[in-house]
């Protein structure tokens, strides 16, 4: 193969430097060969004519020529020669003859060879290259071509900045997190969420290398004269077996500044075995060290000992309030539209704010810029379809994703009356448009709706929905500066309706809505400084409860809780500074301002006593737009990275976060009917600090990563609840809330193998999480003011994710999870009251449910790999909880017929097999 390329290369050189063709040879040849070796035949012909032969002697050494030629043209001779052999020939304008085995070579360049945009050309009809081989060839050509950057100059002193986008050659999607670097001197950057990079290099010639997950690594020869642009396209790596999968994060993990961050791309996630046959990013995130949930079948994430509402969940820059379908059995993100998921556990940069614990940044694809395509899948519970394609080729693309369940239809087929009266359905829709106005301006529009309905046995029905829309305008000022202007809208609402008894029939509604705008700027000052700065503002509007009669017979008294308004604004600036090749640091600060705004009637409580309904002193009315309470404060962010060697580094980070909106939930798991509450006079904003330290090492030629991270964090003004708190439709909810402080600490160990047939990771996490409600009044104190474990405190967790590729088509995955059981409150004693047995409970969270262990497997079978096929399909067979272990979700006690009985509830108590069919066209 190498020789073949060399031939092509020689051919190209010849073509480039020998621009004057030496004219069409019309020589007629007369010769006689009898069992002559091919080499002699060549010598003979070359001596008689001006033709030159290029051939591989290994391919022709067995060829004996027996020909009698009488004044024939060269073409006719060669036709005769190769007849019945595997050989091919090609003849160019300059009289060069190329003899090749198996395949003809092309003596003309592709028509767009000198077109620098690098777009795929129309296929040259007479050759049978597959699209893949053709791209492969073009890639080689592009890699060897020298690109001049900037206006030419003879002065090559100093540095210059080049910038551009890295895109996927097959669909024009930006490649996020690709490493763009030169090796000597070692200077590198990673592409941002738009696939944009900006790198400052010494002027002169460089080999610029580009690597990314699942993409073929490539390089560009550049001659850097001045500031300029270079657009780069990467080819998808469709033959992972034969090539080492180079992960862009590989180098970033050690050499990058960011710590406590996990990046998952959709390809990795799709290989993991999951319950109910659906790739679910929230469940994948749960396999990462430092991420816990209170139990399976719940969507809330507890990151490093933080509460579930302390995570900022962003989908294309819009906030998602409830990321779960069907109580948490599914997440609301359709796997087909997703591109990647970034989870920040620590070292959160100043551009993120508003939540205490973590940032889960989910981005969808932009849609194929080059051709119309689609994908979809059918699993036991859902069906999904995604369509995408160009609206204007290479300029505007769309992406439309739909997912729905057919469970209602199934429920109706069942012979149980109870289930026939039940409903459970959900859907989600994603629609994105990406428009490239010109090289400097790009517009992105993203909308998203998720909706759930359920009604069981014809009684109370529930409906909840998340709606989001965001518009982003990216403007590149010059190679060093670009800005993004984002406007967004997010809304979460739910409604509960009951009509079982007409007298008590009601509807109850809740809604939270936010409108936000922000501007972010990135300035690549020079090779050592990258400055980010921006400002943002969020306007919150909450309808905390609207309780209405339903139907004419209903006697329900309408109750509408007053709406709440708030305004959260922030400015930030941060600088990423490479002090020396060994040391780099990031320092940033975010300053946030928050106002709780009227119109609203606010209760004032007596000083020095517990907040109770009976201690309300006064009601103060605030007019519309008037500030009721305001808070503000700085949020410093800092990280430092020190390289111990080329393969190892140490990192340290500190960040402070402020949170002005919190979820109030008195239940262990998040429920669809949990309410959100803005910080106000009585409920103070939460403040969290985290310090973390990490050690990172890559081994075995970058194929194995070892990560060790430890952290300590504190949380102020976390909310906890009085015993028996009532949160729904409570006009003075502050009387049921207690102020708690939290602390969490832990260490995470992870070994990750990202390349080769066998890949995956194993991690161990030790983590603790405590809360303390120590207020001056007994009713606002929990466990006598001592620290107690939070409901998601699980000290030990081990995860193993393994993936073995038997062949290109068969892929086997194994997933094992172990964790300590979560804390619960158990009854200590039983007693009799009012004729029945009652239970006396321990102090909060003093016991634990049994430990958790689960094994899952899955097998992916891809259809054949013919490139030209109507549709590509794959089957996934998975078994969730293979061993059928009856993991306790919870333990509870019930007083039944004079006896107190203990029970253990397991959710997925048996192995759950699923089959999913996926297709792509």
């Amino acid at each position, binding site marked *: 193969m190498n020789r073949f390329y060399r031939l092509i290369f020689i051919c190209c050189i010849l073509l480039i430097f020998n621009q004057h063709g030496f004219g069409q040879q019309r020589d007629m040849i007369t010769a006689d060969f009898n069992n002559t070796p091919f080499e002699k035949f060549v010598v003979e012909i070359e001596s008689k004519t001006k033709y030159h032969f290029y051939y591989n002697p290994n391919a022709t050494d067995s060829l004996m020529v027996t020909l009698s030629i009488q004044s024939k043209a060269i073409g006719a001779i060669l036709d005769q020669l190769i007849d019945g052999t595997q050989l091919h020939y090609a003849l160019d304008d300059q009289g060069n003859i190329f003899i090749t085995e198996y395949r003809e070579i092309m003596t003309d360049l592709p028509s767009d060879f000198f077109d620098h945009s690098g777009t795929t050309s129309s296929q040259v009809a007479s050759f049978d290259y597959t699209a893949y081989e053709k791209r492969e060839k073009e890639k080689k050509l592009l890699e060897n071509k020298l690109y001049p950057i900037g206006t030419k100059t003879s002065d090559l002193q100093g540095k210059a900045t080049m910038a551009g986008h890295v895109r996927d050659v097959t669909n024009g999607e930006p490649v996020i997190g690709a490493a763009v670097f030169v090796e000597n001197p070692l200077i590198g950057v990673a592409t941002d969420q738009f696939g944009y990079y900006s790198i400052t290099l010494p002027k002169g010639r460089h080999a610029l290398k580009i690597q990314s997950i699942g993409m073929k690594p490539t390089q560009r020869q550049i001659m850097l004269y001045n500031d300029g642009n270079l657009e780069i396209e990467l080819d998808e790596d469709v033959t992972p077996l034969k090539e080492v999968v180079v992960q862009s994060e590989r180098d970033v993990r050690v050499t990058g500044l960011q710590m406590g961050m996990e990046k998952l791309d959709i390809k990795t996630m799709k290989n993991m075995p999951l319950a109910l046959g659906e790739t679910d990013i929230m469940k994948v995130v749960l396999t990462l060290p430092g991420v816990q949930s209170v139990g399976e079948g719940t969507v809330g994430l507890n990151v490093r000992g933080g509460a579930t509402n302390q995570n900022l969940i962003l989908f294309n820059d819009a906030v998602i309030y409830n990321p779960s379908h069907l109580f948490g059995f599914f997440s609301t993100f359709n796997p087909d539209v997703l591109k990647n998921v970034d989870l920040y556990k620590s070292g959160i940069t100043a551009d993120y704010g508003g939540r205490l614990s973590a940032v889960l940044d989910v981005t969808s694809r932009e849609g194929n810029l080059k051709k119309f395509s689609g994908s979809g899948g059918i699993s036991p519970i859902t069906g999904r379809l995604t369509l995408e394609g160009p609206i204007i080729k290479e300029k505007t693309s769309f992406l439309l994703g739909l997912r729905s369940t057919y469970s209602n239809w199934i429920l109706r087929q069942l012979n149980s009356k109870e289930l026939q009266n039940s409903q459970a359905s959900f859907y989600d829709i994603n629609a994105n448009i990406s428009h490239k106005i010109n090289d400097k301006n790009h517009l992105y529009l993203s909308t998203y709706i998720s909706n759930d309905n359920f009604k069981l046995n014809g009684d109370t029905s529930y409906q909840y929905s998340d709606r989001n829309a965001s518009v982003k305008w990216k403007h590149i000022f010059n190679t060093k500066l670009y800005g993004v202007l984002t406007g967004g809208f997010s809304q979460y609402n739910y409604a509960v309706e009951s009509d079982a008894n007409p007298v008590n029939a009601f509807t109850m509604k809740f809604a939270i809505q936010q409108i936000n705008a922000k501007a972010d700027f990135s300035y690549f000052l020079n090779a050592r400084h990258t400055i980010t700065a921006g400002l943002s503002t969020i306007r919150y509007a909450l309808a905390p409860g609207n309780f209405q009669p339903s139907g004419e017979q209903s006697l329900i008294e309408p109750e509408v809780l007053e709406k709440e308004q708030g305004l959260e604004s922030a400015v930030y600036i941060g600088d990423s500074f490479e002090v020396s090749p060994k040391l780099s640091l990031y320092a940033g600060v975010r300053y946030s301002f928050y106002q709780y705004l009227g119109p609203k009637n606010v209760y004032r409580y007596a000083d020095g006593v517990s907040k109770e309904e009976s201690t309300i002193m006064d009601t103060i009315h605030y007019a519309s737009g008037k500030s009721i309470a305001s808070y503000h404060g700085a949020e410093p962010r800092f990280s430092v990275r020190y390289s111990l060697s080329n393969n190892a580094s140490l990192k340290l980070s500190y960040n402070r976060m402020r949170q002005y909106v919190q979820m109030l939930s008195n239940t262990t798991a998040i429920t669809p009917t949990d309410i959100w509450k803005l910080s106000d006079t009585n409920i103070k904003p939460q403040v969290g600090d985290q310090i973390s330290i990490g050690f990172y090492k890559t081994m075995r030629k970058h194929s194995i990563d070892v990560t060790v991270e430890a952290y300590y964090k504190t949380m102020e003004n976390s909310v906890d609840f009085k015993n028996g708190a009532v949160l729904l439709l409570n006009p003075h909810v502050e009387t049921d809330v207690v102020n708690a402080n939290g602390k969490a600490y832990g260490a995470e160990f992870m070994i990750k193998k990202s390349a080769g047939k066998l890949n995956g990771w194993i991690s161990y996490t030790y983590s603790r999480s405590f809360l303390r409600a120590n207020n001056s009044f007994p009713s606002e104190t929990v466990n006598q003011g001592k620290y107690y474990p939070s409901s998601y405190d699980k000290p030990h967790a081990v995860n193993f994710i393994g993936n073995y590729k038997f062949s290109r088509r068969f892929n086997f995955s194994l997933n094992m999870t172990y964790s300590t059981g979560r804390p619960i409150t158990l009854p200590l*004693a039983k007693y009799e009251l009012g004729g029945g047995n009652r239970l006396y409970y321990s102090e909060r969270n003093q016991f634990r449910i049994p430990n958790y262990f689960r094994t899952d497997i899955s097998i992916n079978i891809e259809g054949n790999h013919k490139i030209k096929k109507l549709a590509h399909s794959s089957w996934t067979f998975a078994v969730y909880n293979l061993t059928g272990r009856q993991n306790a979700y919870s333990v509870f006690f019930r007083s039944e017929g004079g006896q107190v009985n203990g029970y253990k509830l397991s959710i997925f108590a048996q192995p759950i097999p699923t089959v999913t069919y996926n297709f792509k066209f």
Partner: protein
Amino acid sequence: MNHRLVFYLALIMRTSWYRISFFFSMNQRDSHIALLVSAFIPVLSGCVEPYQPPAIQLDVDILVIDGFLNSEDGSAIVRLTHANALSDKNMIQPELNASVSIQDDMGNRYALIEQDTGTYALTGLNINPAAKYMLSVRTANEAEYASDFVNIISSPPIDSITWTGKDDGVYVQVNTHDDTGNTRYYRWDYVETWKYHAAVSSDWKLVGKVPVYRTDDERIYTCWRTVPSTKISITTSVRLAEDIVSQYPIAFVPKGSTKITDEYSILVKQRAVSKAEYDFLEQLQKTTESLGGLFDPQPSQVIGNIHSLSDPSATVLGYFSAGATTEERLFIDYYNLPDPLKKLTSPVGCEVDSISNSDLQNFSGYEVLAGAIYSGPFIVGYTVSSAACADCRYQGGVTTKPAFWP
């Protein structure tokens, strides 16, 4: 609202199984789907299984005070017991030799008289409906407890007790209202009584070794069993425009239950309660009757309106309240049940054997004579059956007809 979610979840769990089973049988006929689906049901009911908690040692002794002052008949009854460890199989221990008294806000004090097993009572009190009352207790080892002052709350009458026969059983509902709108918080207790029969009628009994025909009083074929409620039944009308309780589901008798094999009766006692007592009962209900689902509130200690005076940090459980009850009785006759509920389940394992006269000498006491076997005019032997089958008292009832029974 949340406690229902447990059941919903259980249902969803089932449905997800249905889906899976359905998926595997997609190309089969509908009847096969149904078969597969029903095959999965027993598998799923295994999701909840008994659990034995780790041995928890209760090292503190907690006193439980359950007191009620009945303003209607002027009686007070207070029960003093101790909480015992969950694993403790012993009976609840009563607190004996305590001095218990009730006091009004005018300073009048009435001492209660100790009955048996930790019950202290007093009758013939002259209750002033406008006064407030409190309870004080001093135990034998000098620990002192007192309740908050409580108001006397009278209860409106029960409008009606209704019942609905559905496919799965009988639902009993209560209706009431208060035109003054002052009640708002309701609590019910009930006592169920039902008439039932043994599977086999025993006409004869053995006196010594001699069979004697049973008199009407001696028959053990028909029994009445009375069982008080153990669950907490409460509701509130605060969210309604009028103080009305409509069709509150108070009791449920499942299809096939012995309770509805002849005649069933329920006596519902209604009491209006204060908001504080309602909150207490609601928490008690949540923490002992409906915990464990995914979306249930975290359990917590439920503390009532009684405090320890000698040691303010000591825990004392229970509640003291005062007021009047109103009651209403409902009868349901077997013949009025809808047809699906009329199907009697035949008792399993009730065999009737026979015994000859000569074998009567060796007859064991575990079996009961049923009927006589005649050969012409002479009795040659008797049919016999187990006591569990032929003696209705084995199921907990008594053969004496209650006074209220029609």
